């Protein structure tokens, strides 16, 4: 993850598909053939990332709709992004990186 405060683009790659079920969202990485489960909170965060295309914007979107301190949202989203990126389920790109 880049340093805090730098714009960070987020994108769900084309090789990732997911489906929602009442108690869980199941994500499939078509490149690895691995399945992953997301709970409702993680699912909402993924949706916000996909909609906003940017981590900071996703944080702002979630902070506006959830009664949760922004710092907690940032910490949770940062952890989720790292986990998803490590599994090939999310692409993160630092626009200002050389």
């Amino acid at each position, binding site marked *: 993850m880049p340093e805090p405060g730098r714009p960070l683009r987020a994108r769900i790659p084309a090789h990732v598909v997911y489906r929602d079920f009442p108690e869980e969202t199941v994500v*499939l990485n*078509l490149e690895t053939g691995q*399945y992953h489960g997301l709970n409702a909170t993680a699912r909402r965060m993924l949706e916000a990332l996909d909609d906003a295309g940017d981590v900071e914007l996703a944080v702002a979107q979630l902070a506006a709709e959830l009664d949760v301190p922004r710092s907690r949202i940032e910490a949770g989203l940062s952890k989720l992004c790292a986990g998803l990126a490590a599994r090939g389920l999310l692409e993160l790109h630092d626009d200002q990186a050389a």
Partner: protein
Amino acid sequence: MTTKPPEPPAFWHYRAFALPVRSSLPLPGLAPSAPETGALTLEVAPRREIDDLWSGPAGEPIWSTAIDGSPYAMRLGRADDYLMTYGDDALYLLSADLRELRCAPEQPADPAWRRLLLDTVLWTVSLLRGVELMHASAVKGTTGVVAIAAFSGGGKTSLAWELIRRGAALFTDDILALPAVGGELRAHPGPGLMNLPHAEQGRHLVGEVLGSFPTEEWVTVPRAALGAERLAAVCLLRRRRGATLALRRLNPTVLDLLPFSLAFPDLRGRLQQQFMLYSRVATEVPVYELSASLDAPPGSLADLVEPLATGPDRRRPAA
């Protein structure tokens, strides 16, 4: 004046596992069908012809197992054709375009090669052509098709047969075809054939005994479903030592169903289709877990499953 008997047709047309078949020999237990474009042409050929046509193995077998004590192997050829070998008893060569299947039995009168053709080779072709397959037996009742999914030896056939004895129609024994198309989710039947233990009750429901094997008989079941039907329920049959007999509705995800899907390693490109189809089943079809101990008789399981096939209001007349 004598009447000349009618000539047999040059080809018989059938459908099984959502696969249209155009066969140069009559096949037992398959539903007759109108000729369809794109049908699999099936014919018996000399072994030498298959040896000449086979492009040679591209690598290790895709699938190796044993069926009735004989080794069975499926190989992809260097020209994308497939060769299935059943010990020394039979060869089956599928052309690269998946349109022609040549069978070379060592003993044409032996039922074993026909049984393998109709309960393994045909669904293999269906799977290769893009149809998704669930490891399940199924019966058709008034509500639609009820699938009983379990791994080999899990008791699918025994439970299906018990439901047939109670009035349901056979839909498929062991493999259920689910074409990945839009619209309503519909299941497609397998052949009207079953493998039943020698001492199984309800023999009056059996048509012809096509073959007798060490532990079972291969039989036709006349009252079998002929066409595609709505999938009304899926029961995941789980037998465990000491388990309490129970049927409970699940809140499933695709992950509950995928263990019962069939695939070959070279079909990795189908992962997305498989994921989408089984996601549809999980969200659109009631899915149940049927748990039972290893020694629970099929009748006790059928008591729980029967209402799924017949609707809750049906009252079975006393025997």
